């Protein structure tokens, strides 16, 4: 069973996810960033579901493991679509919504086919392995997409502070999880060490988004070229 530390982190995570939705509602940003908020609401519901299954069946039960990995995969796909809505915001003046949506679906299908091809060669528990692999691959695809979006923000001189912070915090989150999955693949014996660290990583995104919604008005502007590590 998880220890008190895991329960505290779990509770803090749940509260932070709820805080994002509350902050967005209070600042009237819920509809503008609808998918981001729906993702956070689903993440909070998923946490509650995980707790319920944990209490009913126990930590090492198959039910809990299935629920954990399947809900994680669904949430990752949800986050992937939320990232694509950030693309729509950045490219809003170009009226590129249709192309972004099409590209999103094509890339998701491509990632799923690649994952299918990899899993087909190696696994007996096909569906479960596919779900776990898809989730891992989507984290890396999400990371690359966020990096491309950040480059577009710099190139297009996007100045909306809130949007910039939402993108950058998502980039940090994807990088942390992609690095975590890579380390777990390289050193499987370290997996148990990384469990509490990953739980703490998971708090970053809701905290950063709650901050962005609460602290930054939609009208706030900054010069993005000054944020780049190498000044442009």
């Amino acid at each position, binding site marked *: 069973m998880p220890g008190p530390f895991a329960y505290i982190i779990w509770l803090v995570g749940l*509260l*932070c996810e709820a*805080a994002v939705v509350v*902050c967005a509602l209070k600042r009237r940003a819920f509809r503008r960033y609808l998918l981001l908020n729906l993702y956070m609401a689903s993440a909070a519901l998923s946490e509650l579901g995980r707790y319920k299954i944990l209490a009913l069946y126990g930590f090492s039960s198959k039910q809990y493991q299935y629920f954990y990995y399947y809900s994680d995969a669904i949430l990752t796909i949800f986050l992937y679509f939320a990232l694509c809505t950030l693309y729509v915001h950045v490219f809003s003046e170009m009226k590129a919504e249709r192309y972004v949506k099409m590209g999103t679906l094509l890339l998701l299908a491509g990632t799923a086919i690649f994952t299918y091809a990899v899993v087909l060669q190696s696994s007996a528990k096909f569906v479960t392995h596919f779900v776990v692999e898809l989730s891992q691959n989507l984290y*890396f695809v999400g*990371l690359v997409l*966020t*990096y491309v979006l*950040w480059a577009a923000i710099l190139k297009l001189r996007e100045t909306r*502070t809130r949007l*910039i*912070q939402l993108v*950058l*915090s998502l*980039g*940090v989150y*994807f*990088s*942390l999880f*992609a*690095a975590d*999955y*890579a*380390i777990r*693949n*390289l050193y499987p014996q370290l997996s148990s060490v990384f469990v509490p660290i990953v739980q703490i990583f998971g708090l*970053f995104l809701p*905290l*950063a988004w*709650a*901050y962005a*919604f*609460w*602290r*930054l008005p939609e009208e*706030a502007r*900054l*010069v993005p070229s*000054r*944020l*780049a*590590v190498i000044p442009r």
Partner: protein
Amino acid sequence: MMAAIILVCSIVFLLQFFVSYCRSLIAASIKHPLSAEVQDVTGIKNSATGDDFARVVQLLQLCPDRPEDRSGIQAIGAYFGLLGAVRASVARLIPSLRAWTETERGQCTYFAAVTLERRIAFSRDMFAQQLET
């Protein structure tokens, strides 16, 4: 091999995103003028220096915090640590990098002072609400 490439890419991207994110937090707060009261408490008159950061953070910890402020100060704390590591290693060899880390550390302190001001205002509001009820 693939996992190693993903790990390296992730770490490089992470550093880029993290530094840019922290600088965006600082940029959003740098225009906020400090009140005379916070200037007195922190000792920051004209420009903040990195040496004051620990003291301002200690003052911050004395005030009740809000969850939505927590990520900002924690991220800036980590960024300040990263700058300290750069200052103690690579920046010793490159004077321009040393000057850049000093400026960034000063801005981290300013961010902490702005957060302190917000927390003081928040505590005052709470106190006023309690008095009213």
